[in-house]
């Protein structure tokens, strides 16, 4: 009986297995193949374009070539976009959810208001925010209504950058980050008195020391000095994204909070917990799965951020660029299909680093949960 069921299930799933394997995985494979060729430039759009296998030269060019500087800044931007969006949207979303969870007056109204930005398309909200953040209008002239001087911050066009680093030292920076993570894990373990903690701590410290000592001997990632950093012109875009998505994370958390049994809260209160303690020690830890899915969804959104940037700062703005935008322009404007495909694959791999651990984790959970 069970065997028969399996066969039936297989045949029911077969059409989607075939379609997905062709239209998702087949095309990913094709894109990867294109990224290994030299398809592009003059004659790229001929009926039978000439494509020669060229190995990983497109990737090497993007990361270490003279003309890849724009892409590298885009990549750095994407990292900052992701980090800021995660911190902002989850922080504000959780805060709003906690406020609404305490059932203030007009809770339903506020819930709708906070969730509303979600329903706008990025192009619409991008256009609105571009107007609001215009250098001589919108937000910047708000203080004049109360008789103060207008702000002069150029939200979208500032040329300043903070937290700059030299791309040449990429390897060294990567080592520092690794050691920082190891040391953090070690300290946490030490705090909880785990036996392996010391190992993490020591290896972290060793790597850190080596990276510091061998800084000049390490191979340079680039033949020339090239600094990248957090461009303050991206503030406006981050602001708009957080505005749009904190309502969404609020809805996620609110659903989670309402799902927690009232008994649990009553019990905590009876034991003398304050409201803040209830959230700190009971509610928020219980919503870990929700936090994880929020992180996955938001990081995904920040990797696909195209329309918002396009609407707010236009296609060729190096200060606020994003790999997704770069991919579109490289492919469909410059006809450099191979390099566009390489950028797409890089984005795909970055998205994979977020998704795959999550999928593996949830798969294991389900197995053990049975």
């Amino acid at each position, binding site marked *: 009986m069970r065997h028969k069921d399996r066969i039936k299930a297989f045949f029911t799933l077969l059409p989607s297995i075939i379609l997905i394997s062709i239209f998702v995985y087949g095309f990913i494979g094709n894109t990867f193949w294109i990224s290994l060729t030299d398809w592009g430039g*003059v004659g790229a*759009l001929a009926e039978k374009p000439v494509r020669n296998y060229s190995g990983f030269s497109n990737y090497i060019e993007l990361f270490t070539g003279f003309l890849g500087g724009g892409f590298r800044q885009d990549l750095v931007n994407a990292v900052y976009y992701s980090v800021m969006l995660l911190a902002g949207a989850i922080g504000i979303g959780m805060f709003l959810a906690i406020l609404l969870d305490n059932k203030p007056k007009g809770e339903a109204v506020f819930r709708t208001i906070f969730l509303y930005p979600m329903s706008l398309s990025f192009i619409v909200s991008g256009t609105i925010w571009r107007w609001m953040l215009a250098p001589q209008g919108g937000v910047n002239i708000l203080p004049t209504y109360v008789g103060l001087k207008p702000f002069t911050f150029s939200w979208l066009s500032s040329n300043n950058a903070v937290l700059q680093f030299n791309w040449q030292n990429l390897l060294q920076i990567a080592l520092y980050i690794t050691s920082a993570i190891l040391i953090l894990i070690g300290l946490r373990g030490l705090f909880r008195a785990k036996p392996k903690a010391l190992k993490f701590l020591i290896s972290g410290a060793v790597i850190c020391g080596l990276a510091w000592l061998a800084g000049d001997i390490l191979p340079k990632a680039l033949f020339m000095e090239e600094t990248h950093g957090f461009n303050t012109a991206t503030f406006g875009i981050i602001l708009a994204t957080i505005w749009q998505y904190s309502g969404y994370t609020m809805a996620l958390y609110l659903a989670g909070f309402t799902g927690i049994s009232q008994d649990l809260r009553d019990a905590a209160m009876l034991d003398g917990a304050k409201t803040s303690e209830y959230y700190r020690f009971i509610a928020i830890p219980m919503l870990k799965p929700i936090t994880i899915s929020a992180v996955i969804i938001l990081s995904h959104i920040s990797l696909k951020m195209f329309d918002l940037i396009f609407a707010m700062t236009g296609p060729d703005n190096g200060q606020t660029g994003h790999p997704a935008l770069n991919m579109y322009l490289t492919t469909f404007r410059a006809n450099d299909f191979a390099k566009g495909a390489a950028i797409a694959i890089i984005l795909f791999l970055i998205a994979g680093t977020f998704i795959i651990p999550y999928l593996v984790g949830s798969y294991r959970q389900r197995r053990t949960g049975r």
Partner: protein
Amino acid sequence: MEIFSWWAGDEGPALEALIDIYKAQNPDVELINATVTGGSGVNAKAVLKTRMLGGEPPDSFQVHAGQELIGTWVKADRMEDLTPLFKEQGWMDSFPKGLIKNIGTDKGIWSVPVNIHRSNVVWYIPANIEKWGIKVPTSWDEFFAIAPKLQEKGVVPLALAQNWTANHLWESVALASLGADNWDALWAGKLAFDSPEGVKAWELFGKVLEYANKDASSLSWQQATDMVVDGRAAFNVMGDWAAGYMSTTKKMAPGTDFGWAASFGTSGEFMFLADSFGLPKGAKNRDNALAWLKVLGSREGSDAFNPLKGSTSARLDSDLSLYNDYGKSAAADLGKDRIVGSLAHGVTANEGFMNDFASVMEMFLKSRNAQMAGKATQQIAAKNGIGK
């Protein structure tokens, strides 16, 4: 028959006028007007590429005349040579020689120009110029002499907008710095971008930028023009669609409410860009498409389209009484000036170069390093086969 363009909105009526003429001449043909909106065709070009790759070309499509067409479609052997059509219609003499040279290669002529826009124009408000007690400069040196005075008065000497307008300004500045012969030599691959002349153009551009507004990258070109109109800025280098914007949208009279001149140091030179239609190989309704191209190149079609679009007719024999004062002056210049192609609008370089140039520009706006910008430009020129 299907025609493919990005003319909608403000430019829609001009295209409709052409379609009306075509329908009157060819009543039996069903004409499908496929438009994909988006400024200077960003979206339309992407859609066109997917259609061509998918083996479903429209019968005739809009394209910027020059290398944007040649580098992408002619080199890919996707277009038909239109020289026979030009000869049959007597167009070899109706269009300026310099124009035909720029829209063709040694193997043929590839599209029919519908309109001409001029890129190297500087706009100002005569009343303001008088109020500030200055004269309109004729060279960048004269501009540098008056610019500090304007700044003291709190006026931005030169209004600039987002990235592509920086490219647009660059070509006017570079033309002034290099001269028309060297400009042509650059694109023929005879003069290197990192030669002393090329670097000097970048140096001059860097100096010009010091007198531009700092919030440029968040402004649209209309907002930069508005700065001049409102008296917040003195000059703006922009193509002559700005004339259409000021006379139609802002209801200003050309010549009295707003004035223009060839951008500093480029008088006697006409940097052009043109919209044109071509004939892709494998068009399903080739004869109907040829009839469409005949309408576009005819005097009647050209004079129906251009006054509505606010552009200049590419023909030398257009009926000037249909155009406003700006149009008349531009048509006169087109007849007598030295004609050179625009980079920012696809005449002199292929799409690969234009795309890479935009990132070189971003690099320069950040670093202001003329030497490096010259080197980078030379590299992208080599990579994209400029002059080959």
